[in-house]
């Protein structure tokens, strides 16, 4: 779907939690998982221009123009009412950006940046755009110093990775669960592709970080943690492993009533993983109250 254009739900010029150094982060719209625990659910869907959000906008920033719903950033007060009103978990504020638009933003902020991380949604749904963008950055002398990362759920076949990896410096890969049934229940998809991606990326030397979201009563079980440990060891004991703790922020639907993951549980799991010989286990740098 590229044509050098992608649906961008948001970008940041300052991010210290999406890879090494300060990173420009591009959030692309649309996801192939439907995680009940998603904290950015409005990045999952693709807008159908149904218009349901137009009525709830208090500032007149949303208008129906012909068949399209159009967002005007001028009057928008960032109240996010439109996000809660959308039945398909889409976002009417998404803007369509070309590769050149992104290059221009990167240029304006280049002195402050160590790199670019493309996140989602699921970034790899926009594979052609990623390839075009990364190739253009690598070819631009004033941007070539930026390291290029993808934040992905790994739901991409080997053929896809082979196309994008030559221009990619690193991938942050989320494993949502090891038990296949649990993975289906939490994400609506199977985890075999995701696990294969972990192996493929590690093999290619492009796995920057393996991420695992701990959810109480789900993915914090000893079985899940020991499966995580086994995978990490298989990928190499120097695999960088990041444990995240489930929180309610942004979560919609049934998971909003689940208990948040307690700090002690994450630290205990980290202890087990470190004791098994994994060198780099990273914990959340801030604990929510």
């Amino acid at each position, binding site marked *: 779907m590229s044509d050098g254009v992608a649906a961008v739900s*948001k970008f*940041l*010029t*300052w*991010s*210290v*939690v999406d890879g*090494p*150094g*300060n*990173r420009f*982060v591009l*959030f692309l719209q649309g996801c192939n998982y439907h995680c009940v625990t998603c*904290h*950015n659910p409005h*990045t999952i869907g693709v807008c159908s221009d149904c218009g349901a959000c137009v009525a709830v906008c208090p500032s007149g920033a949303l208008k129906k123009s012909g068949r399209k719903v159009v967002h005007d950033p001028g009057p928008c007060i960032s109240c996010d009412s439109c996000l809660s009103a959308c039945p398909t978990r889409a976002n009417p504020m998404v803007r369509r950006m070309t590769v050149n638009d992104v290059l221009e933003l990167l240029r*304006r*902020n280049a*002195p*402050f*940046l*160590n790199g670019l991380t493309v*996140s989602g949604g699921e970034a790899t749904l926009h594979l052609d755009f990623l390839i075009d963008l990364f190739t253009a950055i690598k070819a631009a002398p004033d941007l070539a110093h930026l390291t290029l990362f993808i934040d992905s759920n790994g739901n991409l076949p080997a053929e896809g990775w082979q196309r994008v990896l030559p221009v990619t410096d690193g991938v942050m890969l989320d494993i949502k669960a090891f038990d296949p049934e649990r993975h289906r229940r939490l994400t609506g998809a199977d985890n075999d592709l995701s696990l294969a991606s972990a192996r493929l990326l590690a093999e290619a030397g492009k796995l920057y970080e393996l991420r695992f979201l701990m959810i109480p009563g789900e993915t914090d079980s000893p079985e899940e943690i020991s499966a995580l440990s086994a995978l990490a060891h298989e990928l190499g004991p120097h695999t960088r492993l990041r444990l995240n703790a489930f*929180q*309610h*922020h*942004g979560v919609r639907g049934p998971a909003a009533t689940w*208990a*948040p993951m307690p700090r002690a549980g994450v630290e205990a799991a980290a202890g087990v993983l470190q004791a098994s010989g994994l060198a780099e286990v*990273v914990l*959340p*740098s*801030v*604990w*929510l*109250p």
Partner: protein
Amino acid sequence: MTETLSQLRRIAQNPTLSFKQKEHALAVEAENMLPYVLLDAETRAALDARIICDMYEGNAPYKPRYVLPDYEVVLKNGSTHLELPKPETLDEAINTLQIAYHHVPSVTGMPVFIGHLDALLLPFCDGVSDDELYRKIKLFWRYIDRVLPDAFLHADIGPTDNRVARAILRADAELKQVAPNLTFLYDPEVSGEDILRLCTDNIIACSKPHIANHPIHREVFDEPGYAIVSCYNALPLRGGAASLARINLKKVAEASSGEADFLDVQLPRYVHLNARLMRARVDYLFRQSGFFDGNFLVEEGWIDRDRFTAMFGIFAMAEAVNHLQDLAGRPGRYGHDAAANELGHRISARLAELVEREPMEHVWRGVAMLHAQAGLSSDAGTTPGVRIPYGSEPDPVSHVQALLPHHKHYLSGVSEILTLDETVRSNPEAVFQLAKGALQLGFREFTANVTGNDLVRVTGFMIRLSDVKLYNAARGSRVNTTALGAEAAETVHILDRKPRVVGLELMAGSGV
């Protein structure tokens, strides 16, 4: 008179003031029993309305606001007046400096500048091991913090990467004291990235040092150069600043009918009145106070009466711009909206031009130096200097980009603080890149605080810890609110300023 006497009595009998604080408060009261320096009626009226402000420096300026002695003089020659021989060893050099500090006047009663310490001490370090050096610096640092506990007392290091600078950075990160404040003078040609990285790592550990853009400052000052002192003021070394008076831009905007009236009529008017106020105060210091006469600091060459500038301060840029935006019916706010930011930049350019047109006698180079002033604790409803109002700052990169065009105008310093949330602790490379980028693009000073910020970016989006707390609390009985409070206190714990050490200069009435 009876009112004054009862005020003096209140101070003398106040059970909460220390002996030292009483002494200083009584001295301030006594000074203010004298008539104010001679002002014309129009200037007086603007001062009474606090559209212009003398920082409550006192009615009869008898000492310069900031004194930046050239300590090299006493280390090279000793001091006849203080009966100090020329120091020969590192211990003697440090001891000489410690004695020297007690003879340096300033607005706070404590020195605001304690020297380019690495350049001063390096010649005494031959034969001193790294470990010995570090231990001596630690003792020196403890002495400063316990004996001269003022957050505005400032040491400079750099631009070279050297043993003393490294020992200081190491001790500073370890001790995490409020005093001394510290600036590294960074020159990409000379310093190298290694020491810049050490500096940004230190910022993560203790929000110090500040990093000054050495090539940009150096260009402004002649020999023997400059120093960064107090709240990020760049001033001539071997001199300082005679006085600081400032304009409340918010009040000037409120007196204006619109942008054109502000830029063409009101701003010129109040710049002129503030200049008159400064002239009167500077004149008193130089011609009536006798400060420079028979002063051993002058006679021995620690300071030179021709090297004192006057600082032309401004504050409340944010409120001024937002008020002018309101008058024009434009919704964009300062710090966030490109048009509002550009209006701010135009105001700074206009200020620089106007200040340049106000000649000043006795003052270094004959004109005052523009300064974005950091504020007094009594300022309410105004934002310091050209800063973006607290709590509404954009992310650090957008923040730097929004303020960058101001920096070239504020020759005596622009006090800006970037607040970084705690997640940077695990990613020091990001702070390094931010500092490097800001300095490369022309930021005069890079200052960052890593705080237990309420606003934290956890994944893609910023959230407020307090909101999460409210949300959790509303979910009722399953969550123990007491435990929450305790945990939040743990998360948001940093920068509890020690009560023993205070920012003296923030207090009205020239501090303690």
